[in-house]
Structures are given as C-alpha cells and as structure tokens.
C-alpha cells in the first residue's frame, strides 16, 4: 500500500520522493510554475485553501522551511498554526500520537511535520483521520521532499525541462542528509543523465550506489563537467563524531571555490539548501557569485510548497462536505 497516493494515483500525503512517480513530480513542478506567478504579483493570495486549517508541527528547530511553509499556506488563504515542540528529550510514541489526536480534535485539515526521527511523517500519516493530509517537512535522515522539489524546480527553470542531458553532483554529508536522499530520488525519477555524490567515505552511506549514484571521493573529479552542483550544509557536530578531522581540512578538500568551479561546465549552476557555512562548504565568492541560485531556491520554495499543499488538498475539495 502506498500511503502517499490515493486509488486514482493522486497525491494524498507528501512524505517522500521514494514511492512517487515521474508524472506526479512533473505535475508538482507544473503546478508550482503556475503559482510562481502569484508570488510575484502585488496581491499575492489565491483563495484555494480558504477556510482550511494547516498546522506547522515542528519537533525540530527550523526557520527557513517553517517560514516558507507558513507563507505558502497564507498565500493559499489557509489559516496557519505554528506549533514548536522542540524539547530535546525524545518524544515518546504515545506522546506524539496524543499530540496528534488533540490537534485533530481541533479539526485540522493538514499537518506539516518536521521530526528528528526517520519515519516520523509516515507514522503520523498512517495514524491521522482519513480526511487529514500530512506533508513531510523533514524526518531524521530520511526525507525532505519539498526541499528536493524546490531544487528540481530551480534546476528546471535554469536548465530547462530535459534532465536527461544533465550531470548533477551533490557534495557533502550524504550520510546524514535527508535533503540528499530526496534529491537523489527526484533526480533519478526525472531521468537525470548522471547523479554523483562527492564526500569522504565517512560521510557516504553504506551501498550508496544502490541509490542510483556514482560515488566520488575527490571533489575535482566529482564536479568534472557537471551542469549542477548541490552543496550540502556541513553540521559542526560532525567534527566531534570523528567523521572529519577539521573544518579546515574539509574546506581544503571539499570546499567549493571559484578556482575549483572551473572544472565544471562553464554554465554550471551552484545550489545549497541553506543555511550556508561560508568558508566551510563554500566560499562567499561562490555563494554570492554568478553561478549561484541559492536565493532563487528560497523563493521557489514558496511556490513549490503551495503546489504540494494544493495538490494534496484538491481531492478532498472535490467532495461536498
């Protein structure tokens, strides 16, 4: 059973890219394209989700993702409630379920969920009432599908719709990254020519090739002739876990500079899900340079999230209430 897709093949929940198909991804991108116009207008609202209640349920700190979800919901005219449950102690299963039941009792229509445990969004989606929709805003190391879709949206806008001719390199902490996992699935579903991951062995998960990527341990070889480079954020705590010796050595080997960038295609696009550690994973000259689309990614995040929310809700709207 696919939790995410209803019996007509339409989006019910948005939990992971894994388990979706190319057609759905394209539908999300096309819908986002139509909303991109809205976010650029002076009156930035459409009434699609008027009267709906959307809860941002964040068990893990977030600024960017939560804010863009909130903006996206508001531009769809929904009512938005932000709930942050960020006490560090592990949230017990029954507590999570209790939290959910309590919110459900307030007639919530959609949960946007972020949680530090992989599988949390799936768990919630399999326990909500049938009419409630769940969108994953990041679960553990598993999945961050709206981030991946806004990245695909950005790539499509910059490079055009034919992913087949693209080489894409994802550089950094693949092991711990839910963003990387979602990007890899999305790129492969969209038939990207080649997907590479670049990192030292300590930051590459076991059997990474089984995800459908080529593994590189050398940055220059990994970005050779690529069309898109996606840099991942390096968490500072990776130094303590003996995964890396120092930020300095990481920067020397895997940090992106203009000099290194010359090995990629001349029109290479540089992306980053943010927030950037300047001088660790990339130089400011790259982050702020002409190849960078990092701020566009943020803008696109709103349109993509509007698309996902409205698609997940659309089935319900067709039914009289």
């Amino acid at each position: 059973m696919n939790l995410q897709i209803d019996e007509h093949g339409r989006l019910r929940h948005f939990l992971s890219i894994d388990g979706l198909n190319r057609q759905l991804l394209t539908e999300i991108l096309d819908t986002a394209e139509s909303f991109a116009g809205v976010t650029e207008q002076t009156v930035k609202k459409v009434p699609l989700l008027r009267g709906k209640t959307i809860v941002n349920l964040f068990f893990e700190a977030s600024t960017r993702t939560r804010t863009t979800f909130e903006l996206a919901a508001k531009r769809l005219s929904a009512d938005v409630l932000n709930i942050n449950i960020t006490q560090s102690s592990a949230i017990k299963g029954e507590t999570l379920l209790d939290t959910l039941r309590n919110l459900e009792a307030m007639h919530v229509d959609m949960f946007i969920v972020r949680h530090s445990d992989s599988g949390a969004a799936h768990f919630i989606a399999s326990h909500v009432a049938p009419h409630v929709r769940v969108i994953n805003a990041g679960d553990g190391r598993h999945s961050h599908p709206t981030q991946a879709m806004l990245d695909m949206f950005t790539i499509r806008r910059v490079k055009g719709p034919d992913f087949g001719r693209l080489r894409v390199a994802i550089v950094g902490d693949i092991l711990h990254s839910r963003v990387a996992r979602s990007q890899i699935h999305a790129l492969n579903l969209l038939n990207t020519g080649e997907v590479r991951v670049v990192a030292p062995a300590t930051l590459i998960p076991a059997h990474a090739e089984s995800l459908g990527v080529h593994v590189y341990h050398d940055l220059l070889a990994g970005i050779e002739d690529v069309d898109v480079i996606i840099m991942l954020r390096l968490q500072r705590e990776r130094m303590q876990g003996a995964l890396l010796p120092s930020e300095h050595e990481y920067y020397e080997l895997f940090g992106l500079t203009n000099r290194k960038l010359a090995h990629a295609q001349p029109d290479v696009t540089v992306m980053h899900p943010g927030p950037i550690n300047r001088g660790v994973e990339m130089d400011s000259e790259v982050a702020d340079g002409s190849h960078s689309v990092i701020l566009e990614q943020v803008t696109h995040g709103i349109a993509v999230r509007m698309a996902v929310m409205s698609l997940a809700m659309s089935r319900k709207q067709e039914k009289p209430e």
Partner: protein
Amino acid sequence: MSVAADKPARIRISGGRVIDPAGGIDAGQDVFIAAGRIVATGSVPDGFNPDLDIDASGCIVCPGLVDLSVRIREPGKEHKATIASESLAAASGGITTLCCPPDTYPVIDTPAVTELIRMRAETTGLTRIVTLGALTRGLAGDQLSEMAALRKAGCVGVSNALQPLASPLILRRAMEYAATFDLTVFLHADDHWLSNGGCVHEGRVATRMGLPGIPEAAETAAVARDLALVQQTGVRAHFCHLTSERAARMVARAQYDGLPVSADVAVPYLYLSEIDISDFNTQCHLIPPLRTVEDRQGLREALRRGTLSAICSDHQPHEPDAKLGPFPATEPGISGLDTLLPLALQLAHEQVLPLPDLLHRLTRGPAEILGLPGGTLASGATADVCIFDPERTWVLDSTSMRSSGKNTPFMGWEMKGRVIHTLLGGRLVYSLAD
C-alpha cells in the same frame, strides 16, 4: 527446581510418532510416565496401569521445548507481560523450560530476584523458568556481580544481556571469575561503540530509509574479541542469537579449533531480513538487527551444520504503545513464544534440516547449553513432553496468541503445526481445547 505436582499420575501416551533426538529415537511408540518421570518408551513396563491415556495418534511426541531467551517482563515491567501470562503462552507452545535473561527490573544480580522469579514460576506451575545472573552489578558493566551467590541461588549462567561492558578488561575479568565457578557466560556479540545507537542493519535499506545503521562489524568485531578472551580465560561461552553469516563462520572455526563455545539463532532471523523494515514496519525493529537475505541464508546453513545448536524465540512481549511511534523511537523485539514451534517446523517443511535434527535444536541442544539434564525422553528423565500435530494449520491472530505481547510481524500468517498437549514433570499443563 521441582514443580508442585498433584498426585503423581501414571500416564501412557499412545499412538504417536516419538522423536527423541537425544536418544536417537524416531519411531511409532508409546511413552510411559510415572511419578513425574519417563519410565519407558516402546514396550509396556511390567504391571503398568495408566491412570490417564493420552491419544497421540497423528501427532509427534517429543521432549518439551527449551527456549534460551525469554523476556518474561516480571519483575518490573508487568504492563508488558507477567510470569503467569507468559507461562501460559509457553505451555501452549510446548515450551517446558525457558531461560530468563538478567535484564529484569530490578536486575537479576542478587539471589533475591532469582528466588522471586522461581517462586512465582512455581506458583504458576505451567513451565520451568531458569535464570541467567547478571555478569556485572546492575548490568552497569563495571563491577563484577556476586556470581558464586547467583550460582548457588540457581542461575544457570551469567550474562550482561544487551548492556555494554566498560572495557574488554572487565570482560576478561568477568570471564575468569565465571570460569572459577564453572558458569557459562552468555554473550550478546555487539560492539557498543560500533553500533553507535543504530536501529537497523547498516546496508541498502538503511541507506534508502535514512535509518541509523548498525554495521555487521559491530557483531563480528565483538565475536573476534570475545573468542580471543575465551581462548585466554578458558571460560565456557555461548553467543546469543547471532545475526550474520560471518559471525556464524567465526564461531564454527572456533568450535573446530576446540574452543568451548556454542551459539544459537532466534526464529525471526531465519525468516526476515532488512527488507522487512521497508515502510518503517516497527514490528520488524529488532536488536540485534535483521541483516541481509544472504545472512538469513547463512544462518540457516549454520543451523543445519550444527554451528548454531539451538533455536530460541528471543521472546520480547510489548504493550501496543511500545511499537507506536517513528521507527527509531519504538522498542525493539518480537513476541515469539506462540510461534517458536510452528515457525521452526517450517524449516523441516522447507527441508533446511530433518525433523529430528530440528527438534534437537529446540530440546536437547538448548538444554545442553544451559547445562540442564532435560530435553530428552530417556528413561528416568523428568517427564517434560510436547505432543503436537505437525499437519494442523492455524492462523496467528490476537485471539490465538496467548502471550500478553501481540507484537509480531507474523500476525495473520498461517502456521503449520500445533501443540495438542504439554506435560510438565508428568503433569498435563496444557491441552488444546476444541
């Protein structure tokens, strides 16, 4: 460790196929029981007048099963299960002896806790419960427990359960001390530092699902270290439910070299693999983790060869809430008493190994590991007997399950092989009602 018996009865079990792997018997025979013991199999002893005749036609009559690893949850976690509830589940599953690891609350690190469990088991009177004492005080991994006292109180071995030891030096000392008192050390082959808080096998599925992995090396590195220390100290050691083919090979090699080591496998690892955790199925959250399909095959092969001389349930009953949560936040373990026999029998159906060999790994095999005389139908042995219909099918559901814990990924499976009667010390403690 006597079980309070009613008036000792003379029982004849007639018409069944008697399989006593320890005695090399596999024949259509009758079994005769008096005063709680087997008095004969085959021809009727002179002047034997049964008070009770049990018809075992169409059934297999074998020694009561011995289960090496059963969390009974009492004392300390009675909301999950109790000695009474799990004794009933054991009896209805043909299990007459079960071994309780020391990680109860309080920990079995004093004779008092051992006594408590034994007294409650005897009061319930449905199965024998033997205990492993803690290897270190409070299982904290740094101070030796009073092993001599634990042995005197009846503990059949010592173990640190799933808890890590502070250093290999502590393990060495603990092994030396256990050897002094002829205690078997039961080891969970897990290098705590390599496991690093993971919850699934570090492999393709973990990578896809972003679940923190436990590398195979967490097991093999621990086995290598433990074998070196067994060699050094001369202690008798048992590896509790290995999960990887490589670890099983290492133990086979050590056995070939003459080291006093044994190992078992738990039923779920013979049927499931990492693939079963796809979709975040928390019922398949096990520690140690389910590994690859190749490992599952390797474990079956090691079982056939006898490297793994026992099959256990690794029974871990839970309340429903324990499995309701995001995968890493749920409690590991499967409730397995109800399914030990039928799932094991499936291995004979699949011709992994012949039925008598399979039954050996459920009876005499584990009894030998525990240093117990049981697990046989030899004349003079305590009359712990399991009578089951090997062809009878039934469906595992929450009503057919006797354990308090309904947490099992095998829910809804059709099981083949059903216990009809269980005798404990010559007393009928279970009969299938229908």
